[in-house]
């Protein structure tokens, strides 16, 4: 264990908001130094068979694919100077490496499942998609016991590559989840994040896309729905460092019971990034009087020839919508459920087909 790296990670500040009137957890006071760390393991990986496609655990990647692996591993998340990413890097005990060779189109998703048990898990998934290649990754984070899981998902997409990375965090309720998900797309590459934060008592995550090349098409989709005493803290950031590229961020959230959430949606357009088109939409639904969501869109626009849009809504279920359904014979409770599930549907539909039914069921279970 490189203890100097760990020491440095432990000292970093989270950069997240301090506790306040509603949010009670101090992310900088969480004790990571005394965690019992699970022994090294490989996740479950299911991948279609394609010429040149690599999908393996980290040990195999270091051993058999050292050149491409070493060049990319940590190359994106390592630049973020993030507390949780640094912790994950220092304590990494599981992970997966996916490589798609040039111009290879992979239709079936590559599925990676992490199962937490016997101690804290620090997974690192690295996806390298070469020039003109295309793939979809489905990552599931589950647990047999309540553990801390502090992970990284990293996408390095070459010129004209297309990659969708969909993650479903569904850890047991007493768990804590910390995830750093960052992508670096090349020229004319398309990157789509789909993130569902479903489980865990505390879910802290960030989603980043670093737009350093023109022609990039970036999509950030996410939802979360704290209920009971769940807390969710999500930050998304699209950095348009060069122009002639576009991004769309769509975040849907609801909270019920005493569920607490904070979302910060950043769009940063650098002064010379002319021709950028960026949109950010986040909608929050409050389903109980004690639930709370702080939703903050933050646009920082340095260039003048750009199109930037943001829209945010927050509120309870609209009585007019409920009445409309009731007037068609649908009982109030069923109407509320349909409207709340419908609220998430636009974002659920952006996830890979095979995930949607499970996500809908998870949402329905939260409303019940």
């Amino acid at each position, binding site marked *: 264990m490189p203890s100097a790296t760990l020491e440095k990670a432990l000292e970093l500040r989270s950069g997240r908001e301090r506790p306040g009137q509603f949010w009670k957890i101090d992310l900088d006071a969480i004790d990571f130094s005394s965690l019992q760390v699970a022994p090294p393991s490989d996740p479950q990986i299911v991948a279609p068979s394609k010429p040149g496609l690599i999908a393996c655990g980290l040990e195999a990647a270091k051993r058999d694919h050292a050149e491409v692996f070493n060049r990319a591993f940590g190359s994106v998340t390592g630049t973020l100077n993030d507390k949780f990413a640094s912790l994950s890097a220092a304590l990494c005990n599981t992970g997966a490496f996916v490589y798609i060779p040039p111009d290879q189109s992979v239709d079936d998703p590559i599925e990676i499942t992490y199962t937490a048990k016997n101690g804290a898990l620090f997974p690192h998934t690295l996806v390298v998609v070469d020039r003109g290649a295309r793939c979809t990754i489905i990552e599931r984070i589950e647990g047999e016991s309540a553990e801390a899981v502090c992970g990284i998902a990293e996408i390095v997409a070459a010129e004209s590559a297309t990659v969708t990375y969909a993650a479903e965090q569904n850890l047991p309720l007493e768990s804590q989840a910390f995830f750093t998900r960052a992508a670096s797309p090349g020229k004319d590459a398309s990157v789509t994040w789909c993130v569902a934060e479903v489980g865990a008592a505390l879910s802290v995550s960030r989603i980043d896309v670093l737009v350093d090349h023109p022609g990039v098409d970036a999509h950030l989709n996410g939802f979360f729905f704290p209920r009971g005493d769940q807390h969710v803290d999500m930050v998304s950031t699209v950095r348009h460092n060069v122009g002639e590229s576009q991004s769309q961020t769509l975040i849907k959230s609801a909270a019920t019971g005493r569920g607490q959430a904070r979302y910060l949606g950043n769009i940063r357009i650098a002064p010379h990034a002319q021709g950028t088109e960026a949109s950010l939409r986040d909608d929050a639904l409050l389903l109980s009087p004690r639930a709370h969501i702080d939703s903050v869109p933050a646009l920082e626009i340095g260039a003048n020839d750009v199109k930037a849009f943001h829209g945010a809504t927050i509120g309870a279920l*609209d*009585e*007019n*919508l409920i*009445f*409309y*359904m*009731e*007037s*068609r*014979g*649908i*009982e*109030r409770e*069923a*109407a509320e459920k*349909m*409207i709340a*599930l*419908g*609220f*998430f*549907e*636009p974002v659920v539909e952006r996830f890979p087909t095979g995930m949607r039914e499970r996500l809908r069921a998870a949402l329905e279970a939260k409303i019940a």
Partner: protein
Amino acid sequence: MSERGLRIQQLRAAAGGTQILKGIDLTVEAGRVHALMGPNGSGKSTLAFSITGHPGFKVESGSVTLDGADVLAMAPDKRAKAGLFLSFQYPAAIPGVKVANFLFAARQALHPGDLPPAKFRALLLEKMDLLDMDPSFMGRYLNDGFSGGEKKRLEMLQLAMLAPKYAILDETDSGLDVDALRAVGESVNAMRASESGKDTGFLIITHYPRILQYVKPDVVHIMIDGRIVKEGDAELAQRIEREGYDKIREETAQIA
């Protein structure tokens, strides 16, 4: 059978603390078309919402019965189950809820288990065709991004699919072009000609007599300032067309 009909008696109702309906007496008879006309602000929509149970309207006194059943004692969904339908002037947009799923849920709620999904779909396509609606409508989110005409067609589609005993059409004609208006009129007439719709009583609320060229009313009620001030046959609607509401307002001012 003396109790048959949607009977509104001495209905007083308020919105935002202000009394809007000042004692309405009106009976919609099964199988008949009643037109409720009146100038803007006379209380027509308040009547529609009070009968159907919108939470923003408070019934202060009076009664509404549907074939003898006390409507005002029921939750809004129970009123629909009793056979009441409202075509909204401004239908709600509900993102994420698909038209077909919504209609199936509504049909199931009102007529449990009477149509298996395949037959439901066939019936839906048939009714959509009648309303010149493209089948792609089924997969769209309910009223989300719909034009005014599309919304009203969807209201008529629901009317056709839900086959109520009494249907209140609140300004279904407002904002419609001639084609959409004709489609609405034909839809109502087709329903009245059908086995399941021949006994349906209609209360068509309208500001202009336009829609009444397509659907002939049996009775016309004129509402001014929260009261029914005059009743007559289809000729009364013609008169409104010629003279407007002012003359009737003057004539009836002494009575009020």
